């Protein structure tokens, strides 16, 4: 990605320095360094004067430790920043069940809330992974935003394609809870809407009963009727958060690594965000292998030179260094080819690249160097 023909550079500092930017959402496939990117962005913003909070779904202790904390939990904890930082930083981990419990307690009277919290369906829903985590991440985001305690919220989304499922949350909850299934389950058998749906459904009801036991239907019915009372508030909140995300104060950052799978997922996220009119700031490609500035030697030249040296024992080290260089040149060419291909479908999308580190990030200094790389120029 040379300066002449390459993509626009993602200006990370312009985003985090702009006081109008209130939310940064990082999304992408698993294992691309999303959590590290989120933490590095939060740290850089804090050191440049923002009051930032980073919310992650990753329970990795290493992240907590690299922030100088023992562990992360559902409460924002202050991150001890080195001297010279102009702002503040907090970090927290999403506690899915607690967040969900709080929503229920806020929207239902104590009696209803207890009914819901004790229902086995609620227990599965609030601890199960698919969908709930994404939705609760957005709920927490809404809470943090309303609290007004921070002027920048950095969100690290769950590592799956469903990370953007929260965009569907208002619709999906609506479809489910207003849907025919609920009408069908909440109505006594053989009455009302149930009959309107036509013949054959009596069979369905009895089959569901047979499949999972009558108790299942009872549990589900009582869950649905109790949940129904909190549902209005629930959906309203989901819609609010959805609109908040569409505002210009939000910046979505898609994170990828330079491999086929991660870039395909990045492409998917990019399309998905565009389809929902979400403000996409750009693409971060982590773990790239830029070539050193000096000594532009092609892979073939390096291989040939290594070959020439391999006859004698004297220059084994130089021959190995040349082979290593040839490998790096080919790797970089592949990375640029893959990124170029991914970007061809999204012309004009700004990109920031972060070079692979030889070792893992262990501390604030390591995170800061990632932040510096994020804000730095795209290299050869």
């Amino acid at each position, binding site marked *: 990605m040379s300066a002449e023909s390459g993509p626009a550079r993602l200006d990370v500092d312009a985003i985090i320095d702009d006081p109008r930017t209130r939310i940064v959402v990082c999304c992408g496939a*698993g294992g691309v360094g999303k959590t590290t990117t989120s933490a590095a962005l939060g740290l850089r913003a804090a050191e440049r004067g923002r009051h930032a909070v980073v919310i992650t779904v990753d329970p990795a202790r290493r992240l907590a430790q690299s922030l100088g904390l023992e562990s992360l939990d559902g409460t924002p904890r202050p991150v001890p920043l080195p001297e010279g930082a102009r702002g503040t930083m907090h970090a927290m981990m999403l506690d899915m069940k607690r967040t969900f419990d709080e929503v229920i307690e806020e929207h239902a009277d104590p009696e209803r809330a207890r009914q819901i919290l004790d229902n086995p369906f609620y227990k*599965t829903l609030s601890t199960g992974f698919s969908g709930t985590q994404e939705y609760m991440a957005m709920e927490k985001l809404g809470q943090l935003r309303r609290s007004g305690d921070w002027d920048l919220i950095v969100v690290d989304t769950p590592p799956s394609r469903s990370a953007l499922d929260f965009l569907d949350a208002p619709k999906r909850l609506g479809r489910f809870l207003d*849907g025919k299934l609920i009408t069908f389950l909440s109505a006594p058998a053989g009455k009302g809407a149930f009959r309107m749906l036509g013949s054959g459904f009596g069979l*369905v009801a009895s089959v569901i009963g047979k499949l999972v036991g009558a108790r*299942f239907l009872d549990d589900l019915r009582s869950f649905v009727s109790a949940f129904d009372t909190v549902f209005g508030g629930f959906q309203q909140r989901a819609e609010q958060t959805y609109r908040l995300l569409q505002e210009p104060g939000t910046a979505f950052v898609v994170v990828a690594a330079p491999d086929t799978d991660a870039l395909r997922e990045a492409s998917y996220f990019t399309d998905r965000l565009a389809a929902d009119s979400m403000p996409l700031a750009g693409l971060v490609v982590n773990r790239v292998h830029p070539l050193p500035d*000096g000594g532009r030697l092609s892979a073939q030249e390096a291989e040939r030179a290594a070959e020439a040296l391999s006859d004698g024992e004297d220059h084994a080290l*130089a021959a190995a260094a040349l082979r*290593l260089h040839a490998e790096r040149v080919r790797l970089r060419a592949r990375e640029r080819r893959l990124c170029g291909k991914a970007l061809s479908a999204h012309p004009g999308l700004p990109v920031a690249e972060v070079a692979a580190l030889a070792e893992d990030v262990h501390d604030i200094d390591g995170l800061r160097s990632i932040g510096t790389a994020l804000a730095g120029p795209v290299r050869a």
Partner: protein
Amino acid sequence: MSEAEFGRGTRARLHIVTGKGGTGKTTAATALALALAAEGGRVLLVEVEGRQGIAGLLGRPPLPPEERELIALPGGGRVCVLAADAEAALLEYLAMFYGMGRAGRALTRLGVVDFATTVAPGLRDVLLTGKATEAARRRAGDRRGTGGASAAFHYDAVVMDAPPTGRIGPFLNVNSEVAGLARVGPVRSHADKVMDVIRSERTLVHFVTLLEEMPVQECKDGIAEIEGLGLHAGSVFVNMVRPPLLGEDDLATAADGGFDGAALVPGLAAAGLADVPGLAAALSGEVRSHALRAGLERRTREDLAAVGRPVVDLPYVEGGVAWPALERLADALKRQGTVR
């Protein structure tokens, strides 16, 4: 699980492949399926996350949710692939056990599938794991796996490209998820049967990792979690292993920063290259990061050895994994005795 139901012997029949995101689960699972089929057997490779990762790896268009024979090996081995899908599995299950073709479709219209994915993720997981366990138990000429125990197994082995380590415990421990919801009935007994297969000694959970700290930590945590659930951990697949290009002494010197490129100058000059000082400086930087990386790999490998599971290397493939490279990876697995 009785011998009659899941076969005699000690060789694993169901291989579940997990690992941290980005470590190459799909590649490892596919290579393992090829290695298992190399002796002429029939192997099923199951994908459960709807990513179409296997199709992508094999350079094929998206696969339907049904078992398809995709690879025929020279030795007579066959690899079938199933892109499992919870909705298709549910409908198939209803049709198979209850003859509910039409009513099943009615359930879809009613939003039962939304329900299964939104409110009861445990049901979704049991449907997906159920596809793999049913295939592993299936006997020749029988779709239900309830046929005579004397009939040969339909598949010699089943390999599942499973969800990542962060989700693998709840995903495989379907019983506890379902037990709270369906206390009785066929769904419950289906879940019990699935769990029997998953807990069997002939089901192994393999972990894919890279020689980096976080994937290795997740691998160790994952093994502890799986064993804590009473399941059996198999091998650790170390993916993208590269041979070091330098000797131990040179690596140590370079990693300590005691290598400024001067040592390269005579060699680069002898090779007749231009701008030797500039080139030496550039290359020495690459050598240093290579050495640091090699040090990290050595440390994480020692860390992995302490886990006490067999560690199997999958070589790094330059230029990305595609068909010929998959065969090389499968050979590497065979050589290291993974499929014995």
